[in-house]
C-alpha cells in the first residue's frame, strides 16, 4: 500500500521520503529532513531537489519562521496519538506564523484525532492504521460538528446565537 497520503478527501501516493540525519541528500526528488538539518542547510536544497521539514514533538516550530514561504511541506510528527504537542505546533505554524503550504500529520495518526488535527490547520495525513484508512474511505470522520471555541482556521462558519464563540464544520 503506497497511496498512504490522505488529502482533500482522497488517498494518493506519498511522494516524499523522510531522510535520516546521517543519510546523504539525494540528487533529485522530494525529501523531508529534520528541523536541525533543514536549518543547517539554510533552508535551501541543491538544484533539482525539493526539501521539506519534519517537526518532531519537542521541536520549536518558531525556528522555521524565516523559511516558511519557501517550504512546500511541513510534516508534524505525532510519536504517539496521545502526545498532543503537534497540535500546538500546527496552530503556531498556521495561525501565528502564517504558513500556507501543505501541513502533514505523520506518525501515530488515528481517526479519532483527525478532526482535531484538521481544526489545528493540518491538511494532509499519512495513514498506516487500517481501521483509520477504512473509516476515511467510507467518509466516517465521526466528529462532533459543532465547535464551542473559535480557532484561527479559515472556513469555519460562525454559528447561531453565540456567533462570537461557536463554529460549525465548514
Amino acid at each position, binding site marked *: 500500500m503506497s497511496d498512504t497520503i490522505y488529502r482533500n478527501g482522497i488517498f494518493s501516493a506519498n511522494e516524499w521520503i523522510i531522510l535520516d540525519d546521517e543519510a546523504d541528500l539525494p540528487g533529485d526528488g522530494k525529501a523531508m529532513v529534520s528541523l536541525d538539518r533543514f536549518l543547517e542547510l539554510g533552508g535551501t536544497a541543491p538544484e533539482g531537489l525539493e526539501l521539506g521539514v519534519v517537526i518532531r*514533538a519537542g521541536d520549536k516550530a518558531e525556528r522555521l519562521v524565516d523559511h516558511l514561504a519557501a517550504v512546500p511541506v511541513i510534516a508534524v510528527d505525532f510519536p504517539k496519538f496521545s502526545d498532543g504537542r503537534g497540535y500546538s505546533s500546527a496552530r503556531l505554524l498556521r495561525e501565528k506564523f502564517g504558513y500556507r503550504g501543505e501541513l502533514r500529520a505523520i506518525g501515530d495518526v488515528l481517526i479519532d484525532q483527525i478532526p482535531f488535527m*484538521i481544526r489545528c490547520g493540518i491538511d494532509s495525513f499519512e495513514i498506516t492504521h487500517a481501521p483509520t484508512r477504512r473509516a476515511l474511505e467510507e467518509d466516517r470522520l465521526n466528529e*462532533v460538528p459543532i465547535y464551542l471555541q473559535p480557532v484561527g482556521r479559515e472556513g469555519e462558519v460562525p454559528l*447561531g446565537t453565540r456567533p462570537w464563540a461557536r463554529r460549525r464544520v465548514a
Partner: protein
Amino acid sequence: MYRYDEFDREFVLARVAQFSDQVRRRLAGDLTEEQFKPLRLMNGLYLQLHAYMLRVAVPYGTMNAVQMRKLAHIARKYDRGYGHFTTRQNIQFNWPRLDETPEILSELAEVEMHAIQTSGNCIRNVTADHFAGAAADEIADPRVYAEILRQWSSLHPEFSFLPRKFKIAITGAPHDRAAVQVHDIGLQLARNENGETGFIVYVGGGLGRTPMVGRKVRDFLPEADLLAYTEAILRVYNLYGRRDNKYKARIKILVHETGLEELKADIEREFEAIRGGILTLPKDEVDRIEAYFAAPAFKVPGDERLFDAAIETMPGFADFARQNLNAHRQPGYTSLTISLKPIGGAPGDASAEQMEVVADLAEKYGHNEIRVSHEQNLVLPHVLKSDVPAVYQVLKEHGLAEANAGLVTDIIACPGMDYCALATARSIPVAQRISERFGTPERQKEIGDLKIKISGCINACGHHHVGHIGILGVEKKGKEFYQITLGGSADEKSSIGEIVGRGFSYEEVVDAVETVVDTYLNIRNGEEEDFLQAYRRVGEAPFKEALYGTQ
C-alpha cells in the same frame, strides 16, 4: 442557571453519538484498549477494581431538580442504587457496564448533562464556589466565567491530549471556597481601582505526589482577556510540559523546573501574540451568559419567628442552624448545606431516594437550584430562613440532617481500597471510624471548625495535603499505614500540611487523630481560636510530643 440552546443540545447529542461509535469500535476490535482509553477517559469512563466507573459532570456544581432526579434514576437503573459525589463537584457511579454507557449518556443528554472531560489528560470540568450567586461576600458570580471556560475548553482541538489532566477553579469571593490555589489554574475574581472586573491568576497549584500551592502570575487580568490568557498558559504547558514521566507531567512541575519568572515570560509572550484577537471576550457576550445566571425571583422574607421558635423547640435544629447555614446576600434568605457525612457513613454517598428528596426540596423551597460542594456535600443555595425548619424536618426523616458542615466529622475521603485500583490503603473505613469517635453533637461543637481529609494513596484524591489534619494511607510490608499531616489549608491562605512523624497502623490511626485533637483543645486560646489558627501559632511541637513523647 445555564440553559442549553439548540446548538448546545446538538453538541451533546453528537458527542453521545461519537462516543457510542467509539464503544462500538472498541467492542469490534477496531480500537485497542490503549487507543480506546484516552477516548473513554475524555468521557468520564474509568476502569476500576470491580467494574467501570462513570463520572458525570456537574458543571461548576450547579444543577436543578430534574437533573438530580435523573441521577437518581441512573443510580437505580444502572448502578446499585446510589451515587458518590466527589471533590470535583461531580458524581460518580461505581458499577455501570461498558455496553450500557452509551445508553446512560443518552439519558443524561435528555436533561442537558454529560460526562465530557471529567477525566483524561484534558481540561477538566471547571469548578467554582458552591455558594456562587448567593454568598453575601461575593464580588461577582464565578459561574459566568466557569461557563465561558467550559465552552471554550469543550473538545478543544489543541488541548485534548495534554501531558496530564488540567484543572481550573474559580472563586467569586475573597474568601476562597473553591480551593483555587491548589488547581492548575486558579482564578479569583477581583475589581481594579476603576471598578472593572478581572482576575487574580494563580498557576501551578496541585496535590498528588508533589503538592504545591499555585504561584501568582497576574494581579489583575482584565475580563476580556480571560480566554486568550488561559489559552496562552495551556499552549506553553502543552508544548513544554513533561511527557516522559506522568508523575512529573502536571504544570506545577513545569513551573517548578522552569522557574516562575521564565515561565511567566513564556506565557506573556504567547499571550501578546494572540491578545486582542478572536478570543477577546466581548462584554455583551459576558452579559448574555450572566443573564443565564440571574438570581431567581426572590420572595419577600417569611415569618422568621418560625425559625426562632424552631431553635428553641425542635431537637437538633439549633445545631443545624448554627453549622449548616451560610449568609445570603438577599434579606430573609440563607444557603443551606445538606451534609452527605452522616456519622459512620461513607463520605459523599447518596442513595437514589435521598437524591429525590433533595430534588423535591429544591423545587418546593429552593428555587429549583442544587449545588454540589467540593467538600462532598450538597447545597440548597437559596432558601427562605422561615422555610428552614420545614426543610430540616424532611432532611431528618431521610438521614440528611447531620449538623456537621465544617466540623470534625465533615470528612473528605477518596474511595480508597474499597473501589480504587490504585489504592494502597482503605480510606472510607478510616473516615467512618473517625466520624464515630467524634460523632456526638457536644464533642463536635467543642472542637469547632476542623477539616480532616483522607487519601488512600499518594495521588491525593482526598486532598489530604490541605486538610487541617491530613491522613494518607500507604502500604508498608503488606500492611496499611497512615501518615498524618498537620496545618494544611485550601482557602485564600493555602498551605500544604507537614508530616508530623512516623505513621500509624489502621488500628492506631483513630487514636492518633484523637490525640491531635485533644492536644489542640488543651493549647487553644479559647474557643475562638480554631485548630488551624492554633497550629499556625504554636507549630507542630506540642502535637509531636503528644503523639510520640519526648525524643
